[in-house]
C-alpha cells in the first residue's frame, strides 16, 4: 500500500501535469472531431478521411516512411551507440556532441541545408550526374528519399542516445564471457549485446517512430506539397483551411492508430528480461 502511495507520489506530478495541461485541452479539441457543421454529433469527418483513397494514401505513406525511418535509425544507431559506449569517455563525449549538433540548429534551417544539398544542381545530384547515374535535371528534392534522409538525420540522435544509455549499463563481463565461449565479436554483438540493448532500441525506436509520424516541418519542406503526410494534412486543415473539426478527426485517427499499434511495443519496453 505504501509502495503504491510512493509510486503515486512519484508519478503524481506527471499525471497531474498531463491531466490538466494535456488531456483537458486536447479533449476540447478532439471533441470537435464529432461535431458537425450544425453543432450536432456526426461521424462525417471520420468518414471523409477514412473513405477517401487520397487520405488513406497519405496514411500509408506516413506509416511506411515512418517505419523505414525508424528502422534506418535503429540500424545505424545501434552500432553507433555501441562504439560510443566502448570508446574512452573523452572521445565519447565528443561523438555525442557531434551527433546531437543537428538538434542545436532550428529544424527549418537544417532542412534548408538539405534543400541545398539535394536540390537540382545541389552537391548530391551534381555528384550523381557527374558519375553518370542521372540526368542533369535530376533532383532529390521533393522525393520520399529526401524525407527519409532529412528525418533520419533529425531522429538519429534520439535513437542513438536512447540506446547508448542502455549499452553503457551492460556488464562488460557478459561480453567477455561470450568471447571466451567462442563467440566472435559479431556473434557477441548479436547474441549478447543486441538482446540486452533491446530496451534502449525499443525506446529509441518508439521515439523515432512517434516523432516521424507526427512531424510535418521536415517532410513538408523536403517532400514538398506533393508528398503530404498525415501531420502536414492536419496542420493544413488546422491553419490553412481552418477545418478544425476535420483536423481533430485526423488527430484522433492518428493518435488512436499509433497508440494501438504501439501497445505491444509499450508493454515490451521497460520490461526486465525473462
Amino acid at each position, binding site marked *: 500500500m505504501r509502495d503504491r502511495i510512493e509510486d503515486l507520489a512519484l508519478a503524481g506530478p506527471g499525471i497531474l501535469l498531463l491531466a490538466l495541461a494535456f488531456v483537458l485541452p486536447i479533449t476540447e479539441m478532439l471533441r470537435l472531431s464529432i461535431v458537425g457543421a450544425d453543432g450536432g454529433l456526426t461521424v462525417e469527418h471520420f468518414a471523409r478521411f477514412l473513405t477517401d483513397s*487520397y487520405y488513406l494514401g*497519405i496514411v500509408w505513406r506516413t506509416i511506411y516512411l515512418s517505419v523505414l525511418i525508424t528502422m534506418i535509425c535503429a540500424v545505424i544507431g545501434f552500432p553507433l551507440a555501441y562504439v560510443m559506449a566502448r570508446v574512452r569517455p573523452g572521445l565519447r563525449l565528443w561523438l555525442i556532441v557531434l551527433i546531437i549538433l543537428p538538434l542545436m540548429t532550428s529544424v527549418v534551417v537544417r532542412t534548408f541545408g538539405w534543400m541545398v544539398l539535394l*536540390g537540382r544542381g545541389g552537391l548530391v545530384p551534381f555528384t550523381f550526374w557527374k558519375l553518370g547515374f542521372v540526368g542533369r535535371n535530376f533532383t532529390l528534392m521533393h522525393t520520399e528519399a529526401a524525407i527519409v534522409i532529412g528525418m533520419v538525420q533529425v531522429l538519429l540522435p534520439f535513437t542513438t542516445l536512447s540506446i547508448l544509455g542502455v549499452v553503457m549499463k551492460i556488464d562488460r563481463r557478459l561480453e567477455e564471457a561470450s568471447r571466451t565461449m567462442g563467440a566472435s565479436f559479431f556473434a557477441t554483438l548479436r547474441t549478447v549485446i543486441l538482446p540486452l540493448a533491446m530496451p534502449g532500441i525499443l525506446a529509441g525506436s518508439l521515439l523515432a517512430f512517434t516523432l516521424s509520424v507526427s512531424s510535418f516541418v521536415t517532410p513538408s519542406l523536403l517532400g514538398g*506539397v*506533393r*508528398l503530404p503526410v498525415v501531420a502536414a494534412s492536419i496542420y493544413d486543415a488546422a*491553419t490553412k*483551411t*481552418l*477545418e478544425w473539426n476535420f483536423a481533430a478527426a485526423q488527430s484522433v485517427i492518428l493518435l488512436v492508430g499509433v497508440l494501438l499499434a504501439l501497445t505491444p511495443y509499450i508493454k515490451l519496453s521497460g520490461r526486465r528480461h525473462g
Partner: protein
Amino acid sequence: KDKLVINSYGGAYEQIHRKLVIEPFMKKYDVDVQVITAYSADALAQLRAQKAAPQFDVIHFSGGQEVVAAREGLISAIKAEELSNGKDLYPFATEGLSRGEGPVHAVAAIGLLYNKDKAPKKPARWADLWDPAYKDHIVLTDLSNSYGLLGFLMLNKVKGGDIKNPDPGFDAVKGLLGSSVVVSTSPEMQQNFAQNDAWIAPYAQDYAYTLRKAGLPIEFVQGAEGTPAVYLTANLVANRPNQDLAKKFIDFSLSPEVQAGWATELRYSPTNKATKLDDTVAKEVVYGEQAVSGLMRFDPVAVDAARASLVERWKKLIAR
C-alpha cells in the same frame, strides 16, 4: 500609456511596417504599439483559439481571412465614417466594411515572375505558362498560399472556368505538373529562383521586388488576360478595450503618405486615391484610377466558401 497589440508579417515587411506606420503612430498619439509577427493564417488560427481572451487589437490579413473572422465574430465592424481616410479609398477597399471586415490598406498584384537572364523569352500572357519553352523551369504555388490560390483562380479563368467551376483550371494545371515544381512558401520560391534554375512562376508583384532587391534578375509581368490581386486588410479585433485607438491605427495605415511608403519600399499598390507616387514606383505597382479598375477581384465570400474544397481538390491533383 495606452497600448495596442497588432500583427505584422515579419522580415522586411515588418521593418517597413514599423518605419511607415507603427513608429509614426506611436509618436503621433504617444502610445505603445507592440507587434506579434504572425502570418495571416497563423494569426487567424491564434485569434480563433484565444477568442475568450484575445490579445490583438488590430489584426492584418492578406489571404481573405477577414471573411471568416467577421463571420465568427472575431473582429468588429468599422463604419467608413469612422475613418478619416475612408472617403479617399477606392470602392473595393471599403467594400468589406458592410460585412464587418476591415478596410483594404494595400494590394499585392498577382502576375508572372520570370528570370530575365535565363528565361528564353519574356512572357506576356497567363497562357504562356503552357509554352513548352519554359518546360521543367516552372514554379507553381500551393493553393494553401493565398498568392497561389489567386494565381490558380486566374489560370482557371483563363482556361474558361470560374469559382463554381474549377474543372478547366485543374485540367490545365494537371498538364503543367509534370514539368514544374510546386512550392508552398515564399522562401521556397526564392530558393527555386536562386538555386534551382526556375524561370517562371505566377506570383505577387511585391515579391518580385523583394527578389530583385536580393540581387536576382527577376521581373514582374501583368498577364494580358488580367491582373488578380491579393487584398491586405486591417481589422478591428472584437472584445478588446481599446477599440477607439485601434480604429485610429487602422485609419493611420490608410493615409496617402503611408501608402506611398508601401509602394516605394515594397511595391504594394495603394488603395487610397490620394496617394502620390514617383514615376519609377508607379510603373511597378498598380497605380491610378484606370489601372486599378483593371484589377480583378474574385468575390471574397465565394472564394472563402470554395477555399476548402479547392485546396483539397488541388492536393489530390498534385499528390504523387
